[in-house]
């Protein structure tokens, strides 16, 4: 049996069909989870995914078939990220300090710290506005035009931000021992 397309499930959700809403969640929860993890959410990622779907439900009447569903979804995800970013600042600061404490005070754990010099760490080094564009484009597979719509910026800006992000990552990777 063919899977129902997103826009049909969205229409079902609008009409109160909970199975349709659950199917949308199951289809998109893992990509969204990875999206937030790549942005640096880590432990909060699941919470953020839940918030996106709660907003999707709240704003279900605003979705029109003319818009691509992923554009709608990632616009909500972007708002969730922006809202939570402020609240999470404190948490990130604490976590960073805890990491530094762990690295500074323990002798045998440096290899773990080194192990974290991975892609997620590299993405961590980017300013938020570059990271979100790069993650949406390279990792989530959104087209430049779609990202422009989600973020409310021209397509040319998306292109130049991807370029800047790639160059910064190149510097980062080359700087690694």
């Amino acid at each position, binding site marked *: 049996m063919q899977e129902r397309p997103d826009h049909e499930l969205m229409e079902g959700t609008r009409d109160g069909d*909970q199975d349709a*809403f*659950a199917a949308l*969640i*199951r289809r998109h*929860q*893992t990509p969204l*989870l*990875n999206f937030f*993890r*790549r942005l640096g959410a*880590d*432990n*909060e*990622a*699941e*919470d953020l*995914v*839940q918030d996106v*779907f*709660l907003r999707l*439900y709240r704003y279900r009447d605003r979705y029109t078939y003319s818009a691509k569903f992923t554009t709608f979804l990632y616009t909500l995800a972007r708002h969730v990220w922006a809202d939570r970013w402020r609240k999470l600042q*404190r*948490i990130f*600061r*604490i*976590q960073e*300090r*805890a*990491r530094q*404490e*762990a690295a500074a*005070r*323990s002798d*045998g*754990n440096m290899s*773990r710290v080194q192990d*974290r010099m991975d*892609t*997620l760490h590299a*993405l961590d080094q980017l300013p938020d506005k570059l990271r979100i564009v*790069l993650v949406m*484009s*390279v*990792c989530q597979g959104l*087209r*430049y035009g779609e990202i422009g719509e989600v973020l409310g910026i021209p397509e040319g800006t998306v*292109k*130049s931000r*991807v*370029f800047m992000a*790639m*160059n910064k*990552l*190149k510097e980062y*990777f080359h700087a690694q021992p």
Partner: protein
Amino acid sequence: MHNHDECPYASDLPAFLQGELSQEARASLEQHLKDCPACRAAAESHRRTIETLRRPLPPVESRDLAPAILERVQAGNRGRRPVFLRAAALVIGLVGAGALIGLIVPRLGTRADPRVTAAVEWLRSAQEPDGHWDTFKWGAQKNYAPGIAALAVLALLKQDDNALDGPNGDAIRRGLDYLLGQQNPEGRIGALNSGTPYNQGLATLAFLEAGARANDTRWKQAATLALTYIRATQQPSGGWGYPREATDSCNTSITVWQLQALIKADSMGQYGMQPSIEKGLAWLDSTVDEEGRVGYARANDFPYGYETLTAAGALCFLNTKYRRASSARLPQILEALRDAARQTSDVDYYRLYFMTQALAASGGPDTELAAKLRDSLLVCQAGTGEHVGSFETQDRWSSAGGRVYATAMAVLAL
């Protein structure tokens, strides 16, 4: 030297590799690449970066989020009620919150019991004017000072629904004032050391318990901030551990205090606790073996026996309202708990506290067993002398917590 980034084609390379260029721009760049080794090298470098970024992330435990989200949607719908209904719900909620206080600090110890009264009086008499309990004087380690004060405050709060207005009110307020002074802007209670996770969990519980009984915004704000710190220090695997140890080095003893604080806050209506609770319980569940015994850092890991850990784990699994986050092995855990409780003969305040609370929370026919455990505690109470009413420092953990810990823990278990 030629700066490659100045090449007009350089900024098109990522878009080229992602198929984002127009046909015309693409053809032009392809032609350029034939003649420009620097751009070819840059393109190769970008290609490798893209490949690296697209590698799958380390897998995380994946669960179906739909039920939790649908539950929250329905809860939200139920929340849209007329004002008068919301007011009625608030009243019912407050009454319910009052009942829930009993989950973490049950009022099993009878207020009229002279032995409990004597212990409480000793705790009050041992308090310093600024609200703390002197660790040196009472044989405790300094790094646990906030946690010991929090334990004493919890023991005093337990005595009465209106404890803040009764004879213990002043001591409780001074204890909480001391704890407020220990909180830093990040929410952490006390200096960062090996005592921090215990100090944090216990002080958060004290703020929550006090905040549930009186409308002091300072306690509520302190609790909220302390909970932020608890959530921030949760490890990727879901548990909590000592602050100076390697990432993801978690243990049950520390985790259960953080979980108790989160579960308490959640039961009082604090938003946003659920994901941390569920992750914490999932980690705790990973330490349960086939016989229902809860381990220390992993399954079958019992550096100090399984009894205390199993009781502490059972208490968390029983108290969460998120039943699906509880352990599938809960029946075995409870069986292991009862076995351990039947065999317990020595006095270990920490173990007896968790055992009596877990047996009470299990709702099973365990009253007699719990009563036997409580009776075993009382032989350790000083009946005469200068420390009359307090409990002797004879268990394994008394070297860290001293007489205040022993007495407060005993009161909480009674």
